[in-house]
């Protein structure tokens, strides 16, 4: 087996799109750009919405208990992207709302279905960038 060492790969047809072909008969392919998470953030909604770490997040808006609105730096292409979000607590529900190409709102609820703050809330976005 050989190892490819490089600092940059660039698509030929589209600069930011590279497809990896694997498997017999070139059946299995992976589009690198499509598979990457386009945004993530981890924040504490139980204090000052301090953002522990992030990528492609410009700001976080706290509109009330248990809610965090992540505002993107690089817009998404459309509002049909995928969001995965979670908290550190068991028995909690997380949902999203107010989705646009520039932001998404993440809400967390306790087992009594009341909005609740958390020390650790995380969200990740997959989809296409503008």
């Amino acid at each position, binding site marked *: 087996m050989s190892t490819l060492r490089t600092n940059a790969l660039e698509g030929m047809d589209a600069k*930011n799109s590279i497809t990896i072909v694997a498997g017999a008969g070139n059946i299995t392919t992976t589009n690198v750009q499509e598979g990457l998470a386009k945004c993530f*953030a981890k924040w504490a909604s139980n204090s000052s*919405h301090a953002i522990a770490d*992030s990528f492609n997040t410009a*700001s976080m*808006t706290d509109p*009330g208990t248990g809610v965090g609105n992540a505002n993107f*730096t690089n817009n998404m292409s459309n509002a049909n992207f995928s969001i995965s979000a979670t908290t550190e607590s068991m028995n909690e529900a997380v949902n999203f709302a107010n989705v646009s*190409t520039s932001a998404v709102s993440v809400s967390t609820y306790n087992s009594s279905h009341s909005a609740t703050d958390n020390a650790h809330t995380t969200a990740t976005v997959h989809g296409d960038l503008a």
Partner: protein
Amino acid sequence: MTPEFQGTHLWDRLGWAKQNLEPFRSEFCIVWEDPDNLDEPAKVTHPDPNWMACALNGGILPPVWVYWELKKDEAKPDFVKHTRGYLLHNTEPVKVMTESEAIEYLIMKDIPEKVWRDYEQANHRRLFIVKKEQLPQHRTWRNAWKIDQQVA
């Protein structure tokens, strides 16, 4: 030294910034109320430390009007997806900003225009830039937070 980024995809610039710039934790945040929903609790917008690093470094972020253009496109009834994303990548990036300039930029980017346009002339004061230490120290009554109009 920041590379010449005009024409480089914004997302790639953010990747460069994440690798090369130290996050900057601003002591400021923006407290605001939606003038169309004054019964809702006051909202608080916090700058992201990695974004602040980009703003203070300069040469990475697009001018704020680019976001306004994309917002206009998205508001059109026949909007399906952005077709002018190139504005984010090809427009000359903004130069170095001070912390207050970065906060002002963020207000115009992430807070609805109806909140900040002519806000000083409104009867009901609806926007403040405050230090985080000025916020209530606990969140027990979070959904009752309002801008104190007497202070305003």
